[in-house]
C-alpha cells in the first residue's frame, strides 16, 4: 500500500497535479467490499445451519441477521465521516467472527429445540446490535484517543469498581462456580470484568507512559538482567494481588491470567525491561501453583488438564474432566473438514455455545474451520500491533498493543484450554461466544483500534510502509 507516503506516487499522478498523500476513499471502499463478503459468509452460514439441522429455510433469523448487517454498514458509514483513514480489515473480521458465532449459537438452539424471541441466538443478535451501537457511539464520541490519557486514573478506578461489582451482596451472581456476573432478580446478565479489561488497558497505558522512567531506568544488575528497586515493585505487586484475589474470591483463573498477562506485556513494551516479565511470571506461576494446591477448583483444573481421559477424572461428578473430554470428542468428530453445519453433535458438550463454541465450530467446520478462525484472529491482532508500530505517541502505541494483545491472549486462554495447551478456564471466545458483556467489550475494542488506526494514518510522523 502506498497510501501514506512522503514521496510522490510513481504512477497514476492525479491530473490536477496536486500531490495526493492519502487515499482514504480507497480504504473505505476496500472495507465496503470486505464487509459485503463478511455479510455474505454470515448469511450463508445461517442458511446452511437451517438446511443442515432443519432441512428447511426460516427467513426470520436471516432477516434479523440482515438488520445486524445494516448496523455494521452504519458503523462503516460513520467511519466515512469521522475515521476515514481507519484500518479497513478490523471491521470485516469482527463482523464475520460475530456472524459465525451467531450461526453456531442458532445451531445449538435448534438442537435444544429452542426458538423464538427467548432463544440464545436471538438474544445474541440483540446484544450484537447493542455492541455495534456502542462501537458507533465510541467512534463518534472519542474523536481523539488522547482524551483517554487524561482519564488514566479514572479508568483505573472504573476497572476496580467493575471487578468488585460481582462481589457486592445482592448484585453478584455465581455461574458454574465463578462469581464474575452481576444480575437483577434471578438472571445473571452481565460480566463487568469484560468491560474492565478495556479500562485496565487504558489505565495501564496511561500509568506506564507517565511512570516508565522510574520503572525502567534505575535498578541493580543480577544474572545479566537489570532488576527494579524494591520500592518500584509497587504497581506489579498491586496488579498481582488483584489477579490473585480474582482467583480466590471470584474463582476465575482465566480472567486473572488475562489481566496479569495484559499488564506484563504492556509493562515490558513500556520499559524494555525483560526482568519485569521474569519477576511477574515467577509471581504468577508461584501464585497459581499455590492455588492449585489449596483451592479445589484450581487443583481440579490442573488434574483435568494433565490426564483428562483418566476414568477417575472423567467420572468425578463436580470439577471432573467430562466437559473437557466431550470437547475433545467433538473436535475429533470434526476431523479435518468437519461434519458440516448442523450435521455434528456439538450439543453433547456442556455449554457448547459459550465457553466451548470453538469446539462446536471445530466439530462442524473441522480443522480447516478452526484454522480459518484462528487466522482471522491473528490478522485482527496483527492489525492492532501495526498501530503500535506506526503510532506516533507512546500512549496510543501502548493502548493499541494492549487492546490487540488482550484479544490474542483471550483467544489463547480459551482455545488453549479447550485443546489442552493450558488448564481449562472459563473465558469467552471474543466475538464468537454467546454473551452480551463480551460482545460489547470486544466491539468497543474494535472502535478504539479503528480510532487509533485512523489517528496513526491521519498524522503521519514518519514514513509507514506496508
Amino acid at each position, binding site marked *: 500500500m502506498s497510501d501514506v507516503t512522503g514521496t510522490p506516487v510513481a504512477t497514476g499522478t492525479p491530473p490536477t497535479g496536486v500531490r495526493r498523500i492519502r487515499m482514504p476513499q480507497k480504504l473505505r471502499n476496500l472495507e465496503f467490499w470486505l464487509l459485503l463478503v463478511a455479510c455474505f459468509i454470515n448469511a450463508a452460514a445461517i442458511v446452511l445451519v437451517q438446511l443442515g439441522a432443519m432441512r428447511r429455510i426460516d427467513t426470520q433469523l436471516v432477516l434479523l441477521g440482515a438488520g445486524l448487517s445494516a448496523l455494521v454498514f452504519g458503523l462503516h458509514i460513520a467511519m466515512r465521516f469521522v475515521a476515514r483513514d481507519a484500518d479497513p480489515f478490523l471491521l470485516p473480521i469482527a463482523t464475520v467472527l460475530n456472524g459465525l458465532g451467531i450461526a453456531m449459537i442458532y445451531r445449538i438452539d435448534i438442537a435444544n429445540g429452542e426458538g423464538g424471541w427467548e432463544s440464545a441466538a436471538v438474544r445474541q443478535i440483540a446484544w450484537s446490535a447493542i455492541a455495534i451501537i456502542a462501537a458507533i457511539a465510541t467512534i463518534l464520541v472519542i474523536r481523539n484517543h488522547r482524551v483517554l490519557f487524561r482519564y488514566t486514573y479514572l479508568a483505573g478506578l472504573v476497572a476496580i469498581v467493575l471487578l468488585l461489582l460481582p462481589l457486592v451482596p445482592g448484585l453478584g451472581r455465581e455461574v458454574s462456580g465463578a462469581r464474575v456476573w452481576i444480575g437483577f432478580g434471578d438472571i445473571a446478565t452481565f460480566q463487568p470484568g469484560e468491560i474492565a479489561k478495556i479500562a485496565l488497558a487504558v489505565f495501564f497505558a496511561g500509568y506506564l507512559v507517565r511512570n516508565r522512567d522510574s520503572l525502567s531506568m534505575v535498578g541493580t544488575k543480577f544474572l545479566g538482567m537489570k532488576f527494579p528497586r524494591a520500592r518500584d515493585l509497587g504497581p506489579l505487586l498491586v496488579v498481582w494481588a488483584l489477579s490473585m484475589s480474582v482467583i480466590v474470591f471470584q474463582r476465575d483463573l482465566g480472567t486473572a491470567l488475562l489481566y496479569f498477562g495484559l499488564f506484563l506485556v504492556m509493562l515490558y513494551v513500556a520499559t524494555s525491561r525483560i526482568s519485569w516479565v521474569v519477576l511477574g511470571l515467577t509471581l504468577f506461576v508461584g501464585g497459581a501453583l499455590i492455588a492449585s494446591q489449596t483451592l479445589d477448583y484450581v487443583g481440579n483444573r490442573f488434574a483435568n488438564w494433565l490426564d483428562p481421559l483418566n476414568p477417575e477424572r472423567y467420572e468425578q461428578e463436580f470439577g471432573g474432566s467430562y466437559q473437557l473430554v466431550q470437547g475433545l470428542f467433538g473436535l475429533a*468428530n470434526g476431523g479435518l473438514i468437519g461434519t458440516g453445519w448442523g450435521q455434528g453433535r456439538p450439543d453433547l458438550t456442556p455449554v457448547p455455545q459459550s465457553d466451548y463454541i470453538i469446539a462446536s465450530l471445530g466439530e462442524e467446520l473441522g480443522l480447516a474451520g478452526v484454522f480459518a478462525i484462528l487466522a482471522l484472529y491473528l490478522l485482527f491482532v496483527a492489525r492492532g500491533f501495526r498501530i503500535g508500530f506506526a503510532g506516533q505517541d507512546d500512549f496510543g502505541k501502548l493502548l493499541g498493543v494492549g487492546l490487540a494483545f488482550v484479544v490474542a491472549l483471550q483467544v489463547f486462554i480459551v482455545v488453549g484450554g479447550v485443546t489442552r495447551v493450558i488448564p481449562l478456564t472459563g473465558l469467552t471466545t471474543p466475538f464468537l461466544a454467546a454473551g452480551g458483556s463480551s460482545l460489547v467489550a470486544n466491539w468497543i475494542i474494535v472502535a478504539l483500534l479503528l480510532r487509533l488506526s485512523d489517528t496513526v494514518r491521519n498524522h503521519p510522523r514518519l514514513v509507514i510502509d506496508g
Partner: protein
Amino acid sequence: MNRELKRVSIIALLMFVTLLVSSTIIQYVQASALAADPRNARTLYESYSVERGPILVDGTPIAFSQPSDDDYKFQRVYASGPLYVPITGYIPVNGEATGLERSLNDYLSGQSSSQFFDSLNRLISGQDPMGASVEVAIDPVAQQAAWDALGDYTGAVIVTEPSTGRILAMVTKPTFDPNTLAVHDSAQVQATYDGLLADPMDPLFNRATGGDMNPPGSVFKLVVTAAALESGRYTPESTFPNPPELTLPGTDAVVRNSGGGTCGGGSTVTLADALRLSCNIPFAELGMELGDNAIREQAEKFGFNSEFLIPTATEVSTYPSGLDDPQTALSAFGQGDVRATPLQMALVSAAIANGGIVMNPDLVDQITAPDFSPLESFEPSEYGRAISEQTANTMVQMMVNGVENGAASNARIDGVSVAGKTGTAENGESDPYTLWFTGFAPADNPQYAITVLVEDGGGLGQEGYGNLIAAPIAKQVLEAVLNK
C-alpha cells in the same frame, strides 16, 4: 519501543502457532483414538444415524430399523425375535453386537468397502445414507418346524442343505427376545443383559454353534466308522470280539454297551451291526486298533479342530491329541475329551450325504445394496473331501439301516428313506445325559441334513436317550420340510 513490540508480536504469533498445532493434534493425530474411546457417545450415535439394512428371510425382514425420535434416530426391531436370535444376534447401544449384526456390521451399517461408491453417490445426491440388506439362507418353514419340534427342551436343532452348506434352520433353546437388548436406555440394557447372564439356563448361549460344549457320544461313531472304512483295512463286514464288558488296558475302567450285555448275539459282531445297534465295546476295540492319530485325521477332515465363520464366528469342535489307548477307546464312542457342536455333527452327516465332500456352512444367501445392486452373492464352497464317494455310499446304507432296523428307529418316516445316527453321551457319574440325533433325508437324494441336540437328558436325567427324545424331533422337522 518497536524492538519490544516486535518481540511481543512474535510471542503472539507463537501463541497462535501453538493453537494451530494443538488443534491439529486433536483433530487429526488423535482423532481416530478419540473416536474409538468407548465413552464417545458421538461414535455410538454415528453408528445409529445410518438406517441400518434389514436382515431378510425369504424377503420378509426379521431385523430392521425404524425411525425413532431420540438421539439414535433409528430403533432396531427384531420380528419373531426369540425364533431368529441365533441368526440375527442383536446390536445393543452399549456393549458388543452378536450374530450377523456383528459379523456383517460393515455391510448392514453401509461401511463396507464395496459400498464406498454407493455411499459417496448418496452423499452427493443428498440421499440419506443406508446400509445393505442381508438375505439369509434360512427356510422359514424349517426354522418354525425346528422351533416347534424342540419344544421346551434345552438344546438346539440345525438343518443344512448337504450339497451347498446353506444353513436352512438354526434354533437354540432356551432363548431370549433380542428386542429387550435393543432398547436405547443403556441402564435397562445392562440390567436385562445381567439378568440373562445370571440365568442358570444360559439363554444367551447359541447351543447350535457353541455354548458349554457337549461330548458327541455315539454320533461320533460315524467319524470312527469313516476312519475305519477309509483305512482300507475294514469293511462293514469286518468283525470284532463281542464280550459283555471290556476292561480298558492298564485301568479299572470298564466299558459296557448301552443296555448292558453283548452287541446282538454271537461271539463276534460286524462293524455294520455295531453302528446300527450303536454298541460301545466294538468301537472301543476298533478305536484302539485304529489309534488316535487316524481318528483325529478323519475328524479334522470333517471339520473338527477348525473354526467355521458362517460368517458369524462359531465354537471349534475338538478332538484332542496325544491320547493313550484307554483314552482313544473312550474317544471312539464320543466320550473322553471329544467335544462337538450340532453344527459340526451336521457337517459330518451332510458330508456323508454329499458323496464325502464337506461344504463350508453359511447363513447368508445374498447381500444387496440399497439401490438393489448385489454386493455379495453366496457361492457354495468346499471345505474339502472327508471320505471317498464309495465310503460315503457305504455309510449312507449303514445309517439307513440304523433308522429302519436299529438304534435310531424313532426317526422313521413312512415313504421316505431316512439315514441317521443317535447318540447318548455321558457327562459325569450322575449327570444327565446329552442326547443327539444326526442324519439326513431322503437318503437316496439328500435334501436336508439335520442335527438335534438335547441337553440335560431331556428332563429325564439318565433315563433319557437319543432315540427316545432327539430322533422324534428330527423326524418331526424332516416331515415338515419334506411335505412342504
